[in-house]
């Protein structure tokens, strides 16, 4: 069985690890409490931009050195930014632990060089343009903006073309010093780890982190204004699109809610691809290409998403059908065999996930960062086994009965907008 160990370093940085000496690999990740919800208007997109800049050089390494060394360690490494955190991670063979930790830790003290900043700005603008061309053409971001408001959880992760074009390196430095403080960071590890060596090395490498200059929290933006480059229109015109893309959003459980497991089971019974209530009525029949729903948990709030893709002329009838299925579930509840099927699937999924340290890493790191809590695979399986039909029925009545904000991305001459 894997062993869980954790400690807090003298500078406040927390380390959490699930150790299994039998593994072929070791996964490591720095989880930082810096996400788009932590930004003000003039910082919009900074958490993500900063994530890119971590690969662009330190006092000890040039940008090319960082990328070259990551490749030399032969693993899979990357980073991502969400509304609530930025994560830098890599999976390597256990023999590379010390070298990887030296590199990842060093990367978290970037020089934020002006020339690299200017070049990377172009890459971010390309990333924004890339997503503008891809279905569902910004509909999820728009749904978050309208539901939560365009700030806080509703702030888009990439920022806007306008905010990135006008971003200054000094703003980034201030943001870095404000958010990348040791008490805001967890180093998580999973797999074949030497925990004692890890702690000793990181204690020594991160000594200077507590000396980062203190920066005042910027004043909040006026809630009466809309940030530049943001629209709150519920319809997104996508001139060439053949399909209509409908996103619905309403409140869901947070990642500390007691009913989050029941809500996830409900999402699976209602919306799983390949065999769920929405699947059989809408996908299997060829009425829609996608018809699904799921809860998305944040630290203190949650969202419940519905998503449908179909021909624009079928959007209205499909929307009604989806609402009927949801209403039927609220009124009549779920069946015991549906729950059994969903739990069998989830249990097998958890077992399969547990075979790869890289899969375990994200759950361990995020949970430790946001809740200071560890859930082993067996704990998670226990939580699944305890879910009852009544729990799921209660979740349906609680979460599926609230008002839904709907965003539609569709060709502008379509009947679906009527």
């Amino acid at each position, binding site marked *: 069985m894997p062993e869980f160990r954790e400690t807090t370093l003298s500078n406040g940085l927390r380390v959490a690890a699930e150790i299994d000496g039998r593994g072929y690999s070791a996964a490591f990740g720095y989880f930082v409490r810096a996400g788009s919800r932590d930004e003000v208007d003039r910082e919009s997109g900074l958490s993500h931009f900063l994530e890119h800049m971590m690969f662009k050089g330190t006092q000890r390494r040039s940008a090319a050195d960082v990328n070259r060394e990551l490749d030399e360690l032969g693993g899979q490494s990357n980073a991502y930014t969400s509304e609530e955190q930025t994560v830098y991670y890599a999976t390597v063979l256990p023999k590379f632990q010390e070298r990887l930790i030296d590199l990842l830790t060093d990367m978290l003290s970037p020089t934020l060089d002006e020339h690299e900043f200017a070049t990377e700005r172009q890459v971010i603008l390309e990333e924004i*343009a*890339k997503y503008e061309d891809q279905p569902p053409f910004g509909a999820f971001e728009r749904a978050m903006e309208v539901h939560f408001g365009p700030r806080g959880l509703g702030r888009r992760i990439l920022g806007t073309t306008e905010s990135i074009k006008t971003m200054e390196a000094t703003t980034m430095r201030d943001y870095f010093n404000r958010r990348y403080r040791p008490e805001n960071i967890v180093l998580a590890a999973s797999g074949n780890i030497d925990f004692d060596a890890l702690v000793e090395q990181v204690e020594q490498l991160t000594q200077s982190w507590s000396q980062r200059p203190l920066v005042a929290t910027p004043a909040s933006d006026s809630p009466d204004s809309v940030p530049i480059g943001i629209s709150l229109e519920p319809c997104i015109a996508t001139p060439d699109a053949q399909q209509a893309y409908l996103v619905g959003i309403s409140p869901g459980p947070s990642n500390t809610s007691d009913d989050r497991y029941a809500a996830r089971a409900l999402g699976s019974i209602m919306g799983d691809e390949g065999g769920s209530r929405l699947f059989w009525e809408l996908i299997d029949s060829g009425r829609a290409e996608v018809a699904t729903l799921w809860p998305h948990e944040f630290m203190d709030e949650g969202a419940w998403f519905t998503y449908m893709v179909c021909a624009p002329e079928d959007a209205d009838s499909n929307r009604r059908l989806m609402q009927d299925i949801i209403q039927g579930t609220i009124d009549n509840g779920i069946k015991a065999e549906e729950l059994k099927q969903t739990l069998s699937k989830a249990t097998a999924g958890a077992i399969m996930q547990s075979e790869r340290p890289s899969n375990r890493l994200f759950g361990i790191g995020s949970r430790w960062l946001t809740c200071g809590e560890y859930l082993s695979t067996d704990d998670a399986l226990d939580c699944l086994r305890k879910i009852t039909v009544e729990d799921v029925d209660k979740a349906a009545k609680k979460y599926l009965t609230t008002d839904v904000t709907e965003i539609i991305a569709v060709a502008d001459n379509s009947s679906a907008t009527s």
Partner: protein
Amino acid sequence: MPWLRTAALSLNLHAGVHREPAHLGGLSGMVCEMIQRGAGQYSSRDLVAAQDNLGIDRNSGVSTTFVSFGAAMPSESLQDAISLYADIARNPHLPQDQLDDARMMAVQELRAMEDEPTHRVMRRLRELHYGELLGRSNYGTESGIQDITQDDIRDFYQTNYHATGGILSIAGKVDTAEVIDWAETAFGDWKTGEVQELPCPAGTAKYEHFESASSQTHIGFAFDAVPYSHPDYFKLRAGMGILSDGMSSRLFDRVREQRGLCYTVTASCHSLKNGGGVFGYAGTTPERAQETLDVTLREIESLLEDIETSELERWKVRIESGLIMEQQSSASRASSMASDFYQIGRPLTTIELETVIESLELDDIRKYWSANPPQDYRIVTLGPNPLTIPESSESTVV
């Protein structure tokens, strides 16, 4: 793989896209869908319930050669899963009353892909590269899908679903003798049939542009290269690794990191049994698209000018780490074994592959790339404006 808790199977039958009549594009995919709408004692819904209750994480689909079914699960479910997939392949109901549902599903998928500019570019590129016959899309055509009848489904199934040339690979926490018994029981008495060779590659060097008011110009390019079964394949692959595998690879470093020209730039090898190619993609805003294309092709063409041992060594470590990490996944092992079996007639062991990779030297790459320089480019772009094909490549582009 006794250290795992899971097992996986990959079932591949010679019922892929190349067996479709030219006017029925999409038939192989629809048959793949129809055989999963009820089989043996199971209705369509029973099948899904049985798979879920066994904890099977599954996928299915068609490629040029095969229809393929992949299933990963806790190892104790394997015996039941083998028998379930034998039912799907051997005893499908092919319910006529569900034909129109399956047809609509195929149309939905096709339309959704039309909204993906990258997919449109790469689909057309494939047709240009392998020719209209071998390069056909796995998603078919709307007219083909609309014309498919129940007789077409039944005929395609009866002709192409059989044991001959089929590959069932299994990996994970299994007892080999036991698994062979289960497979024998499930598939041992299945009928044989005919396996047809793939059509010959018939690509032509060409540039095509789709006009679109998109935010980015999407650029796809391809050139001929040897397939996996060729003795020189890993010399090609090592060169491609230096060009495009990892964050220090040349395309990522020189097109994205140093110049900031794009977010995505990539190129990789693709293999069929009788032909191969390198396929690449870059997406960039229209005003920088020409420079992106020029720089990308220039980097590919100048690979040998300053190639270094350290680049080759980095690629070797990446491949070797990947091979070791594959030992953590029964699904990826099952799938690579099936692919090896088809391409070279037997699965390569991890040690064999490591030996081949370790023995590669810079001179091997030089020899292959000098003898087979990238040329006869097929190029497809989608965006507001067409691009000019760089002079070095122009002489070979029609």
